């Protein structure tokens, strides 16, 4: 009797959990399994929705003291100081960038591995066409997350199936070498390329646009090979310190690594480039706009949808005050160093005595990209959402002070006298979650720039190098590079072209690391432009332009060529060795 009573009571304790799928329902059909993979795609770094980004870590941008990049530039990158909650907090390098910290990347990787494992186990529930495509998509996503680890940490533990707690042998893995990690990623990408299940590219209107493609796979492979061939890692010694485990580079120098990278870029150009499937987009500033999503230059991007899953990017950059409105956080302050990289309209660098550059009229006669991408003193500023054009003044004007005036202080207003407008979505007033423009990880211009660089290093400035680099220049109406450049001169030209063309696309950080120049460019004062009138009382004099040192942190240390593994990750896995120098 009593037992009966209890039994019925246990039944009355049955309640249903309704908000989740379970082991059975999750993998039962293609549409259910797709839901899991959708979340995998959402693990791509959400770089547009946060103020810190990779360019803050470079000499291109002077971001605020609020960010980890400020600490990084102060020589402050520490595996062990991320425990404390006050504002000073930890110095974790790129760790605060969306999903770019050690545990978050491995969480993303596990999701890819879980999908591959479970979809394979439930293969009979799906068509082979769906299965083949989706497995390769998951593989690509996994490779992409590993590429972040590879770029900033070098050799890392390689995990390709979801680990189980009971399997202690495969649970505690050591760091693979730099070469093994590269091979692991490129081998995965080769598998995808050889399988040939994925489309080369999805264009606008295709419902699968945004999914992984063969184009993205080959681009990622070539890019990683380019990085690996670069002086920091393609060397017998790693600049950050002794590297007996070869996790911070190959431990040897081999010029053929450049050739390997060049071959991958060339394959891309030959098979799909030059306007066949991929090519340069006709216009150099509208490329990023929402209306031109999936254009022929886009290779791999993160998806945003205006308003409902939009980004905050516009709110972080651009002029702080527009038409008197306090609009943005002003986090993208191009340095004088970057501004000086933009060519004159005649294609010559400012350093060329025949360029025609006048330091007292610095914004006259510059190339097209300068006017489209940089907001300078006196620049007209008009976005689609603005009812009228504004002119942005950053000069120190005592008669008619502008709210955007350079303030050399820690407010949002620029410290360099520059803002930028590259990639800003002109449709929306800067705000949270409004912009639907996609974040582009790779575009075809990088194939050309990467090829030019790798080929120049591998064999020298041959015609194919000229062709690649001139294609970039010609698009923005710059003339061809002069013939007869030496390999070294061509290298400088490519580096400068790359810095300008890819500015604010989060490429510079890896570039200064792999070119082994971070310890030069991040150990000197960066500059802003002070513009004052010789008769400040009534502006009757002339406006003078003086670059002013910002006196902001610039204490890069050699060990910072790679990131340290967080101290707690080391504590949890005794097999991990720390990155050299930490």
């Amino acid at each position: 009797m009593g037992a009966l009573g209890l039994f019925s009571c246990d039944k009355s304790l049955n309640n249903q959990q309704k908000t989740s799928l379970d082991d059975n329902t999750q993998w039962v059909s293609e549409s259910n399994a797709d839901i899991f993979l959708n979340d995998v795609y959402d693990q791509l770094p959400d770089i547009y929705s946060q103020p810190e980004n990779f360019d803050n870590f470079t000499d291109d941008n002077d971001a605020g003291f609020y960010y980890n990049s400020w600490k990084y530039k102060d020589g402050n990158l520490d595996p062990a100081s991320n425990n404390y909650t006050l504002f000073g907090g930890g110095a974790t390098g790129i760790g605060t960038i969306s999903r770019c910290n050690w545990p978050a990347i491995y969480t993303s990787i596990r999701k890819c591995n879980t999908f591959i494992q479970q979809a394979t186990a439930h293969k009979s529930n799906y068509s082979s066409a769906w299965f083949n495509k989706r497995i390769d998509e998951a593989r690509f996503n996994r490779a992409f997350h590993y590429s972040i680890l590879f770029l900033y940490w070098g050799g890392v533990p390689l995990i390709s199936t979801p680990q189980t707690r009971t399997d202690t042998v495969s649970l505690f893995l050591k760091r693979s070498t730099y070469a093994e990690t590269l091979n692991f990623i490129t081998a995965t990408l080769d598998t995808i390329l050889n399988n040939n299940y994925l489309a080369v590219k999805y264009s606008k209107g295709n419902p699968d646009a945004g999914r992984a493609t063969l184009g993205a796979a080959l681009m990622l492979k070539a890019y990683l090979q380019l990085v690996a061939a670069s002086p920091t890692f393609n060397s017998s010694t790693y600049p950050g310190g002794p590297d007996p485990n070869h996790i911070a580079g190959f431990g040897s120098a081999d010029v053929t690594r450049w050739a390997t990278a060049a071959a991958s870029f060339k394959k891309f150009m030959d098979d799909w480039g030059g306007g066949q499937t991929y090519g340069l987009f006709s216009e150099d500033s509208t490329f990023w706009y929402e209306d031109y999503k999936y254009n022929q230059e886009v290779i791999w991007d993160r998806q945003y949808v205006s308003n409902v899953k939009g980004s905050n990017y516009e709110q972080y950059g651009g002029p702080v005050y527009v038409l008197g409105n306090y609009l943005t956080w002003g986090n993208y302050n191009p340095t004088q160093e970057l501004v000086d990289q933009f060519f004159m309209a005649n294609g010559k660098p400012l350093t060329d005595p025949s360029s025609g550059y006048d330091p007292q009229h610095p914004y006259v006669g510059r190339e097209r990209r300068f006017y489209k991408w940089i907001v300078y003193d006196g620049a007209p500023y008009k976005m689609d959402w603005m009812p009228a054009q504004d002119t942005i003044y950053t000069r120190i004007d005592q008669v008619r002070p502008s709210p955007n005036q350079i303030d050399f202080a820690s407010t949002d207003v620029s410290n360099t006298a520059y803002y930028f407008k590259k990639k800003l979505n002109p449709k929306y007033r800067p705000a949270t979650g409004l912009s639907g423009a996609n974040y582009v990880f790779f575009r075809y211009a990088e194939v050309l720039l990467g090829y030019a660089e790798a080929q120049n290093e591998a064999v020298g400035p041959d015609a194919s190098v000229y062709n690649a680099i001139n294609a970039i220049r010609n698009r923005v109406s710059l003339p061809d590079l002069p013939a007869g450049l030496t390999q070294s001169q061509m290298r400088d030209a490519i580096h400068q072209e790359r810095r300008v063309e890819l500015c604010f696309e989060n490429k510079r950080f890896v570039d200064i690391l792999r070119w082994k120049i971070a310890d030069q460019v991040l150990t000197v004062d960066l500059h802003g432009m002070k513009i004052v009138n010789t008769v400040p009382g009534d502006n009757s004099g002339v406006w003078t332009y003086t670059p002013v040192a910002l006196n902001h942190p610039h204490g890069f240390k050699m060990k910072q060529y790679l990131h340290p593994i967080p101290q707690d990750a080391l504590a949890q896995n005794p097999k991990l060795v720390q990155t050299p120098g930490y």
Partner: protein
Amino acid sequence: MKRIDCHIKLWFFLAFIMCRITSFANDPGDRNHPASPLAFTVNGRVVDGKGNGLPGATVMQKGYSNATTTGADGSFGITIQQKSAVLVVSYVGFQVKEISVRAGTPDITIELTPGANSLEDIIVVGYGTQRKVLSTAAVSRVKGDQLVAVPDANISNSLAGRATGIITRSTGGRPGSDNSTLYVRGVATMGTTVNNVTYNTTPLIVVDGVIRNNINEVDPNNIESVTVLKDAAAVAPYGLGGANGVILITTKRGNSGAPTLSFGGYRGDQQPTYLPKMLSAVDYMKLKLEAYLTENPGGTNPTYSQPYIDSYVQNHAKNPDLYPISDALNDVVKKHSPIYQSNFQVRGGSQNVKYYAGLGYFNQSGMFDKSGYERYNYNVNMDVNITPTTLASFSLNGSVQKTSDVDGSTGQLFRGVYKFIPVAPLKFTNGLWGESSGNAPLGVTHSDGYFHQYTNNWLSTIALEQKLPFIKGLSVKGAFSYDPYNYVQKQWHVPFIYWSQNTTTTPYTYTPAFSTQESSATTYTWLNEQYWQNNTITWQGYINYHNTFGKHDITGLAVAELRNNKQMDFRSRVNNFAVNIDELSLGSSNRNDFDLGGGSGTGSQVGYVYRASYAYDKRFLAEASGRYDGHYYFAPGKRWVYLPAFSLGWIISNEKFFKSVNFVDYLKVRGSWGESGNLTSTGFQYLNSYPLRGNAYSFGDGALVQGSYVQIENNPNITWEISKKTDVAVEANLWKGLLRVEADYFRERRTGMLLSPNIVVPQEYGLQLAQQNAGIMDNHGIELSIGTTRRFNNGLQVAIDGNFTYANNKLIQVYETPVTRNNPRRSRTGRAYNTVFGYHALGLFTTADDKTGDGFITAADGYNVTQFGTLRPGDIKYADISGPAGVPDGKIDSYDETVIARPQIPAIIYGINVSTSWKGFDLSALFQGSGMSSFNVYGFMTVAGFNNNSNSSYEYYNNRWTPDHQNSKYPRAYSAPTNNNGQGSDFWYVSSSYLRLKNASLGYTIPSRISSRLRMKNFRLYVSGQNLFTFGKLKFTDPETTGEQGYPVQKILLAGFTTSF
């Protein structure tokens, strides 16, 4: 204005009802007992058992304020205005006695029996009541009348310092959400943390015998008593809900006798206990210049140069719009805001029918026009003896609440106010308002947006109790409770506007601009509405038994309880209203502007409770209680737990050998041991699950798709937390009640705390591990309450009650890596939970430390420790305690971590309650304090330019480091916080111990001869104050505050009255 109208209307309404009812109620009295002509006087004498007169005893007419005290020989005379009356005679150390008198009653001698009254009291315990004297459990109790005159919306803020064993942590002073977090005997568990919010650490709330977490909704005026159950013996009947203690709230019910109508109310003024003093425009600029010159010695580009600063005030006088001076804290925040309350009760009944009804209104305004809290309470209950052996009861406690707030959050608004640069335009001379770094506090307060929450709840119970005639002392009872609770939230955002000043035109022109308040606000309109409903049904079946056989006293109780809970919610949001009408259906028609959500769930719990008590000869006491409890959170087959408790007591003072000890009236020792449970986890963690989420990603056409993922591994064995509690105590009454002492020592071990064992796998594992019931925490402490009551011959009565609670916990087992576990300085194990770790600061670098004089502290100065970036004199110097090799390594990093502060929740709370009365006057004061807690002061008030060149306070300015003031409290001025000085260190932690006059009230009850002429039983006027004075180490902010962006704790002064008819 609107609210005041409503308030006045309500008062009129209440006054109207009151008049109607009183005239009705008094009608029979008026007819039969016209007041004065019938007055008569009773004379008599109050004596003890030996016939000795008791001087200073109180003789009082029951239900009236009419009272007198006895003279030196115990004699008294009292005039009664009615035909008959009941006299209540009381004297310290003796039991209260009631005597009926009528006109013509001859002189009487009233003999009082010794004994402490409070011990004869019946106390409410789990699923029943007990005589305090026979109880073997640790319970503390606060009577309702102590909570009435206190201006708190609910009792969560009134218990600290009043009920022994209660430890509280304030959550700020925002109307409607100013409840304190309550802990019984401190923090004994880590609870469950989901999204940085911790659950399951606070006590269970039981209202009128039913588990109801509705502490917010119960009107203090309707509370008869609050009982806090603390030890295992007391909480065992609550099984899985008992481990964190239980708070039993009992509401008032009817009594037999003529109807008593009570009416009362107060009105008061609130002001923040502390507000910072922010820098003036000139001092702000001076600080900026100082920072600039420190960082750029000899620099020529300061934002504010010395000549500019010197001429600023003059320039401001000439052109205040180009050279603004503002004081946001004074101009945006209201320093005074009203609070008021009124209530009305009727109580009475006959032998067979007893009734009680109450109506209350509470209104608390906030520091912004839009913030406030309003509540209506309505209560009615009835007890009917259907037959001599059958009792039917019905009760309903209802409330209607409205919480209002500014659009956005008050925290963000305070932040905007503290940030506001005093040389930025808060208000232009034409009355329009401006901004500072995009923050426009006046834009927020002027916006039409708002946040409203309307909450409705009902606590209803129907019960039937039947005495079973065939066995003496046996009765059964069935009770059914239905508790619906719902709220609707409506948040209406209208973009915040400020005016942008164009100085290139003459006169200046102003155009409206949007403020996004640090991107916490959108530039478009939106309306969000959310509905949340939770219905709980509780069935209870009781069997009660009580009988005495000679010296044996036996009580038994068995209860079966089933609780079912159903919850559902939905929310909808529409963006971009073309017309600013705050209704969902009037917003945009674009589907991209819509957002919907909602869900539902059910839960259930079944419990079987028992309690058996045995008392022999009022000397030896024994009790066993427990619960067999089942809960849906866990896997089938793992849902049931049995949690027993046992307790013993010995009333030594009833022993023959003790009779000779004259000064001890009562002495009891008691002890208890038992188990209780705590439900951690969030339910269904035993299942492998893939939570679904919307808006996960999109492909191609921009259509959003769902996503799912494994959030955490499942644990099929997941279960509850177990607490083993031990308690030993002494209770004593000495010198005829002159001193009452109760002292407890308690110890508890909590096992099975849910912890994630994440650190046992590499971080590369990539998935949160299932939580395990692995954590162990110890908690122990003492409680002490001491009281005395003294009545003097002149009628002065003084009562002093003090209580003290100390509870200190210690982590015994948590997951920790060997790196910290094996380091005695860093180990979490063995330390109090939430102990603060960080660096040890050695003070500030001085100019003498900069030996090279280059403005930096570097190796060249002989300082070879790497801290955080560049260092200057006036920056914090940290102790290089250790390194990877176990010795100082010239680098400050986590190897230098050490304990730097105590947890935020105090380990000590104490209160001293003093109440005195003399003639018609009464005065009471509650001093309340806490100790062993710490507070992090790092923020706007203690740093220069904390955020975006923000303003700072004089607390910082007057105590900052300068070359002339090297031994200072705060670091040097800087333009932006430095990484070095912002590290978590003991530099920023201060003790938040305090002692404050929490509450004081002074009342006057008008003499009976006057009040009776007004046909009142009594009439009392009072003034009362809350948080009047505070003493503590923390001088610039409230020690109970939640942080500088928290809503300030309020000081309240009020005046009110109570009357009954």
